[in-house]
C-alpha cells in the first residue's frame, strides 16, 4: 500500500540525507531495514502510536540545535569501578575509553565488526528489531538499523567483575548521533550495563538484547541533563528460559525523550522488569512506550514508571502487556504514576492489556496526583522547611521505581543524585 503523500515526502527527504554504510556482514541487514523504513514511512503525528508525542524533530533533515549543558556535577556512575566506553556526539572515542578487554565478556566496536565477512552479530543485528515491528511499527528503530554509524557489540560469556559503562558525551550543538548496540548474554552468564549522558543534540539509539536460558542482564541508564537535547531510544529484549532482565532509566531534563522498550518472553520461568523515573521542568516531554509479549509459561513482567512534572512539563506512558495463547501462569504488573506539581503540567497514559490465556494474573494502574499533603505536613511539623519537605515527598513518590534497582549502592547513588537535582531547583 502506498504511503500517504506527506509521509512519503518526509521519509524520502530524510532517507536522502543519510548514507547507508556498505560492505561487510551487516549490509544485508541494513538493506532489509531500509526497505522496512520505505514500507512503513517515518512516523508522523497522525500515527496512533505517536498520538501523544510529536515526532517531527526526530525525523527532520536538519537537527534542531541543542546547547551543550555546562555543569560541574560529576557524571552518573563515576564513583563505581567500571569499564568505560565513551562516545562523543555518537562517535567512539578510543582515547577516553578504557581498554575493552575484561574477563567474561568480549566487547567490539560496531564499526570494526561490520567490515568483517563473518561475525556472530550478524545473526542478531536488526533481527530483534525486525521482530519488534509487529504488531506495532517502530520505523525509527528500522531507520537506526539501516544507518547506525557506531555502537558496540557485547558478548557476555561469564560474569564480568565490573559493569560496562557506555558514556555518551554531547559536544557539538547540532550533532545527530545514531548508535546501535547488540548485547548477547550466554546461558548462565550475568552482566550489568550502565549508560549515561546526553549523547548528542539529537540521538537515535537501538539496543538489541538476546538473553539465553538462565542468563541475567541489568541495564541502568541516566539520560543526561542537557536541557535541549532530543532522544529516541529503543530496546529490544529477547528472553530465554529462566532468564532475567532488569532495566531502570532515570531522565532529568531534555526537551524530548521517547524511550521504547520491547520485551519478548520465549522461554518459560523468566522475568523482566522495566522501570523508569523522570523529573521534568518546563519545556520537557517524556514518553515511555513499552510492549511486553508473553509467549511462554510462568513468566513475570513488571513495568514501574514514575514521572514528576512541573511548569508545563508533559509525561506520556503507553504500556502494553500481550499474553499469547498458551502463556499460562503469566504474572504481569504495570503501574504508571505522575506527580503533578502544578496545574500546567500533564500526564497522558494509555495502559493496555491483551490476554489470550485463561490462567494469568495481570494488573495495571495509572494515577496522576499532587503531592501527599499528609506526608508534607508530617515533615513540616518536624521542622523541615516546605521546599525540602516537598523534595523528600518527591523522592518518596519515585521510590517504587528506584527500588527496582537490585544493586543497593547504585540505587542509593541514583537517589542522592535525584535529591541533589531537586535541591538545586528549590
Amino acid at each position, binding site marked *: 500500500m502506498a504511503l500517504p503523500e506527506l509521509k512519503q515526502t518526509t521519509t524520502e527527504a530524510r532517507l536522502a540525507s543519510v548514507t547507508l554504510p556498505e560492505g561487510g556482514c551487516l549490509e544485508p541487514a541494513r538493506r532489509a531495514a531500509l526497505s522496512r523504513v520505505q514500507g512503513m514511512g517515518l512516523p508522523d503525528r497522525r500515527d496512533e502510536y505517536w498520538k501523544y508525542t510529536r515526532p517531527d524533530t526526530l525525523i527532520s533533515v536538519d537537527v534542531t540545535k541543542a546547547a551543550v549543558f555546562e555543569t560541574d556535577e560529576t557524571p552518573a556512575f563515576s564513583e563505581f569501578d567500571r569499564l568505560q566506553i565513551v562516545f562523543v556526539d555518537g562517535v567512539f572515542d578510543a582515547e577516553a575509553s578504557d581498554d575493552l578487554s575484561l574477563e567474561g565478556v568480549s566487547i567490539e566496536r560496531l564499526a570494526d565488526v561490520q567490515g568483517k565477512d563473518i561475525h556472530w552479530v550478524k545473526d542478531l543485528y536488526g533481527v530483534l528489531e525486525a521482530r519488534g515491528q509487529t504488531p506495532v511499527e517502530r520505523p525509527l528503530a528500522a531507520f537506526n538499523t539501516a544507518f547506525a554509524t557506531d555502537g558496540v557489540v557485547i558478548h557476555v560469556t561469564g560474569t564480568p567483575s565490573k559493569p560496562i559503562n557506555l558514556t555518551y558525551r554531547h559536544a557539538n550543538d547540532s550533532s545527530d548521533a545514531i548508535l546501535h548496540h547488540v548485547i548477547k548474554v550466554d546461558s548462565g552468564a550475568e552482566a550489568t550495563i550502565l549508560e549515561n549522558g546526553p549523547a548528542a543534540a539529537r540521538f537515535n539509539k537501538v539496543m538489541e538484547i538476546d538473553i539465553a536460558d538462565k542468563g541475567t542482564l541489568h541495564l541502568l541508564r541516566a539520560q543526561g541533563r542537557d536541557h535541549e537535547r532530543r532522544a529516541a531510544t529503543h530496546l529490544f529484549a529477547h528472553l530465554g528460559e529462566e532468564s532475567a532482565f532488569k532495566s531502570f532509566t532515570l531522565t532529568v531534563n531534555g526537551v524530548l525523550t521517547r524511550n521504547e522498550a520491547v520485551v519478548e518472553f520465549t522461554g518459560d520461568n523468566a522475568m523482566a522488569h522495566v522501570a523508569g523515573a523522570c523529573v521534568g521542568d518546563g519545556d520537557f516531554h517524556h514518553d515511555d512506550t513499552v510492549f511486553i509479549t508473553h509467549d511462554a509459561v510462568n513468566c513475570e513482567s513488571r513495568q514501574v514508571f514514575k514521572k514528576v512534572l512541573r511548569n508545563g512539563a508533559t509525561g506520556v506512558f503507553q504500556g502494553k502487556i500481550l499474553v499469547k495463547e498458551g502463556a499460562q501462569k503469566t504474572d504481569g504488573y504495570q503501574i504508571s504514576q505522575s506527580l503533578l506539581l502544578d496545574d500546567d503540567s500533564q500526564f497522558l497514559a494509555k495502559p493496555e492489556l491483551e490476554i489470550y490465556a485463561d490462567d494469568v494474573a495481570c494488573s495495571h494502574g495509572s494515577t496522576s496526583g499532587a503531592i*501527599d*499533603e*499528609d*506526608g508534607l*505536613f*508530617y*515533615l*513540616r*511539623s*518536624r*521542622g*523541615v*522547611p*516546605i521546599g*525540602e*519537605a516537598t523534595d*523528600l*515527598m518527591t*523522592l*518518596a*513518590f*519515585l*521510590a*517504587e521505581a*528506584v*527500588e527496582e534497582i537490585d544493586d543497593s549502592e547504585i540505587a542509593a547513588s541514583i*537517589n542522592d543524585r535525584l535529591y541533589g537535582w531537586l535541591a538545586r531547583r528549590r
Partner: protein
Amino acid sequence: MLEIKNLHVKLEDEDKQILKGVNLTVEAGKVHAIMGPNGSGKSTLSYVLSGKDGYEVTEGSATLGGEELLELEPEERAALGIFLAFQYPVEIPGVGNMTFLRTAVNSQRKARGEEELSASDFLKVVREKAKTLKIDAEMLKRPVNVGFSGGEKKRNEILQMAMLEPKMCILDETDSGLDVDAMKLVADGVNALRDEGRGFLVITHYQRLLDHIKPDVVHIMANGRIIKTGGPELALEVEHNGYADILTEVA
C-alpha cells in the same frame, strides 16, 4: 508556656465550627491530659496548634512562651518548640529514618540560629536514645515508618520527640493501637522527657495511658469546649462512669 485563649476554629471548606472557645494554659514542667468523647475537637486542637491546613481560626489566640503561634508555618512552630506525636504517623518510602531525623534536627537548629550537628555527633545521640526505646539499627535505616508495626511507629514518634527536645509536646492518642507492653515502653519514653522546662498535652480516650503517664491536670472536652477541669481523679471518674454524667452535670 502554652496559652490558649478563647480559641474558635472552623473547617476551612465547610461551615462547621469545631472549636467554640477553648481556654487552656499548660505550665512548664506540667502534664495536662485532655479526655473527651469522639468528635469533641481534641484532635482538631492538636492539629490547629501544630499548623495543619484545612482549619480556619475565627477567634482567639494561642501562644508558646509569649509568641503567637497561629500565624506561623508548621516548621516555624516546630522550631519554636511545638511537637505533635501523630495518632497515625505517616509512611514516607524512599527516605531513610536516619536521614529524616537528621534533616529535622538540623533544620530546627538552623532556624534557631544554632550550629548544625555533625554526622558523627548526631549518630552518637540517636543511637543512645534509640536504644532506650528498643529501636534497632535496622529500624533506623529503613524508610520512615514503612513496614513498621503500630508499636514501632509510636516508638518512632517518641524517638523524634527525644531528638528534637521540644518545649511543648502534644500527644494525640498515642495509646491507640498499642498493647500493654508497647504502651508502657512509649510511656517510659515520655516520662524520661518530663522536666521543669517542658510541658505536655496528652490527648486520650482512656484512663489507662494516664496510669503510666501521670497527669497533673485533667480536662474534659466536649462539643468544642473544655467543660470540666480537675486532678487525676477526674480521669478515674470518666473511666468508671463514662462521659454521660459529666455532660449532664454541666448542661
